[in-house]
């Protein structure tokens, strides 16, 4: 958003406005109005007029809430297509994400009212639970995108991803070189670092930053023990290797902290996306089944 030039400031500088605060919370307001209307209508039909809650989805309000909810869900899934096309202005991707977040959250109320609080072991409740799972993971995603991108660059420091990997590989080459004069036992220990190093590991290792089986960690410790017993040229080589292994361990730490933040930024998607598809399928089954056995 361009703003007027103040002396000494550039006129075209853009101020960052997050997708959550986009257009002065326009979509939060729209979602709030939608929800207040839904709650008021629900109160009027089911509390004030005393219509029973059983089969609330089949009342005129139930059909309305269900249709609105289903249309919102379909629109929300469109973000997968929309994000691959660039536009700007009111329908910029940021506006779209803002609407995605707030309309998505509003489903919690709209669809819960649609259920009439009638739950059971059936496809209908499955669809509802999947929706909650999608929304819950979406909330995790919003939180991740609020706090983590800053940490991502903090953690990485001056290094790029490529540099991290290249540094590790360069260190590997140096380690290999430095270890050539070592005897077989010592060489095998050093080989652990070259063969068994886990740079970023599995999802669990990334999230916990816990790498018990990492070859470099054991190589670091064991080379230090070997060094205490070694002497002469062997000791010199081990010193050199040990220093290189320590440097590698540092870089690995940075890479893993980075991978941890990356994992947290991405993990929610592994629930959000598959569950969205599951939800669409369950929603289809829900709608078809309701009218199949009308």
């Amino acid at each position, binding site marked *: 958003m361009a703003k007027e030039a103040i002396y000494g400031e550039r006129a075209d500088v853009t101020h960052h406005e997050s997708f959550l605060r986009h257009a002065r919370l326009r979509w939060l307001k729209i979602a709030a109005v939608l929800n207040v209307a839904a709650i008021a209508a629900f109160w009027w039909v089911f509390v004030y007029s*005393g219509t*029973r809650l*059983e*089969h609330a989805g*089949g*009342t*005129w309000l139930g*059909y*309305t809430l269900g249709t609105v909810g289903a249309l919102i869900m379909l629109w929300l899934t469109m973000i997968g297509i929309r994000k691959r096309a660039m536009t700007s202005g009111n329908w910029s991707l940021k506006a779209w994400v803002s609407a995605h977040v707030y309309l998505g959250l509003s489903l919690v109320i709209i669809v819960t009212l649609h259920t009439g609080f009638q739950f*059971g072991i*059936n*496809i*209908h409740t*499955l669809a509802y639970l999947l929706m909650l799972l999608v929304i819950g993971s979406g909330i995790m995603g919003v939180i991740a995108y609020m706090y983590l991108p800053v940490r991502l660059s903090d953690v990485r420091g001056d290094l790029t*991803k*490529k540099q991290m*990997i290249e540094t590790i*590989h360069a260190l*590997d*080459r140096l380690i*290999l070189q430095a*270890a*050539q004069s*070592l*005897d*077989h036992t010592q*060489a*095998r220990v*050093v*080989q652990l670092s*070259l063969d068994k190093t886990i740079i*970023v590991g*599995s*999802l669990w290792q*990334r999230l916990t930053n816990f790498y018990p089986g990492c070859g470099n960690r054991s190589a670091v410790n064991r080379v230090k023990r070997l060094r205490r017993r070694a002497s002469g040229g062997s000791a010199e080589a081990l010193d050199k290797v040990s220093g290189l292994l320590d440097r590698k361990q540092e870089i690995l730490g940075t890479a893993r902290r*980075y*991978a941890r933040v*990356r*994992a947290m930024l*991405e*993990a929610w*998607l*592994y629930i959000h*996306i*598959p*569950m*969205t*598809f*599951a939800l669409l*399928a*369950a929603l*289809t*089954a829900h709608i*078809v*089944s*309701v*009218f*199949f*056995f*009308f």
Partner: protein
Amino acid sequence: MSFTILRVTQRAHGGDPIERTKHVEDDEASIGRGTDCDLQLPDLLIGLRHAVMRIAGPGRVSVEALGEHRFVFQGGIVRRAEFRVADGISLGFGTYILSFSPGQTADDVVVTVSQTVADALVSDTSLAKKAFSLSSVMFSLRTAAWTLGLAILLVALAAPIAYDYLVPPPEQPVRINPAEQWSPGPLSAGHTFLQKNCKACHVNAFRRIPDEACLSCHRNGLDAIAMTRLTERVMGLGSAFAPRPANDHADPNLLRRAQEAPIVAANPIISAFDGLFSHPTDRCTSCHTDHVGARGQRTADLGAPRPTPAQVSESDCANCHENLKAHIPDTALLDVKDWDHHPDFRPLIATLAEKGRPKRVSDAVSDGPFDTGLKFSHKQHLATGGDVARQAAQYGEPVAPSGRLSCSACHHPDNEGRGFLPIEMVRDCSSCHSLQIPGVNGQATSLPHGKPARVVETMVAYYKSGGAANTTGITRMRPGGAFQATTDILSDQMIARKVRAVFMDNTVGPHPCYGCHTFTADDPNTLVFKIVPVHLENRYLPRAGFDHSVPQHLVDANGKPLCLNCHKATSSDSLSNVVIPSITTCKACHGARNPVGKQIAASNCTECHGYHTTGEPPAREVYLGPWRFPGGM
């Protein structure tokens, strides 16, 4: 004797491999990581001096590992190997592969050195960059999403549809029906046996449940054979009870005329969905819904369970009854908007007995007074401290504390809680109004009630026998008058006069029959009498199901049991005076609100009226025996 060592290194970014050769002019060459080895392999898995290879004869080579070292030969890990060079043998040392082949001269052996894995340390960093993305260690999002989505579609949508179209409706209860996952909840107690038999009700896909599906079990008016067959069929499907037949609320034509528009069209959203999927003429499911569980339903020992209010959707009586006259001008019913505008009660009396079914059309008050055919005065019977009460007490009948005859002396609770058994003379009156006469030879005998001809016969026989000659001096029997025993033999004429007096005259002597009944005779001298038929109305409000057994219905404002609170019987000296209370009496509680604005008693239509049988409100108690009077009535 010599070895030619040929090293082949692939270029990192493609292109011709780099080849370097080295000649070892000896019949023995060392292999190891050490820089002093003839064949140096810079792999930390390989010992500094790992092995030695020798020319073992013409075209033969032997390789022997040193110390604890090993190498790979023909798939096994060995210490030593000997082979023909011409066989193209390869040996594995760490990540390196040594391939042997004959050289250009007979003495020369070529050892080609290559590495099994493309040098791991020169791996593509662009690929490594991707390692930071979770996609490198996680399942593919796209595959997972499609797999999950398609699996759900298959299990939760395709399977039930296929089952519905391909499997015929079961004759026996089934174990698994894939469509059960569509069931929004358990069925009501009466329908539990259909839980897995979706097609029993959901006959057509994408169509509302037709009335025919309901009526296939609940049709009313079946003969005994048809009903037995139906019960057998339903029980064969697993039901524990025979189905409960349901009446039509009214003639379907009338129902259609009564509605301004079909109920479904009352709301545009509902009508849009219904228009897509249903036939608007189907009426059962416009009120009845199931899959709401059996909460509140009665247990099986009382027969097929009745629907609870939760199983009947909001049925809007006013939709038709608010403007019924406008749609059906000839209706006898009055328009009712709601309880506040409910017209006062119109006690109905059966005036036109059709074959088998009395037609209750006449308003007993405004069209009356009607002669019930019985001479009876509640006022007289209920007089406080009067002869009636005194005599009743003498005969062991209940008398109220106020000193009047108790209502329960004559009126006996029925088995439905609704009211009272129809009055029967012998049971309800004869303890005071005895039908006994001294009888022939003093053998006390009862006059057969309701049979004038036999009464005449019995009495004539008594008088002819000489009557009191053999009596024990009883001069008065209990029915309402002195019964003069006689010792004389009477003439036939005299007997006829006496008997006629019993039926027709209240001016002469005793008149036990005439006191209550009216008789007609074709001829003043005949002894053939006809009773004017008695029409006692047991339910004046047949379209409502007032329940006398409700404790609050039997007490006055102070909580004291009192029939006379509602029924002003003490001022009624004829049965033509209907003692049904007005609606104001009901409104004292029903619809009235307590100081905090809550209704003291409900005022919805179904409190008093049923739909299929208007006098059977759905919430009424189900009785298996007579209800009880509270004490002091």
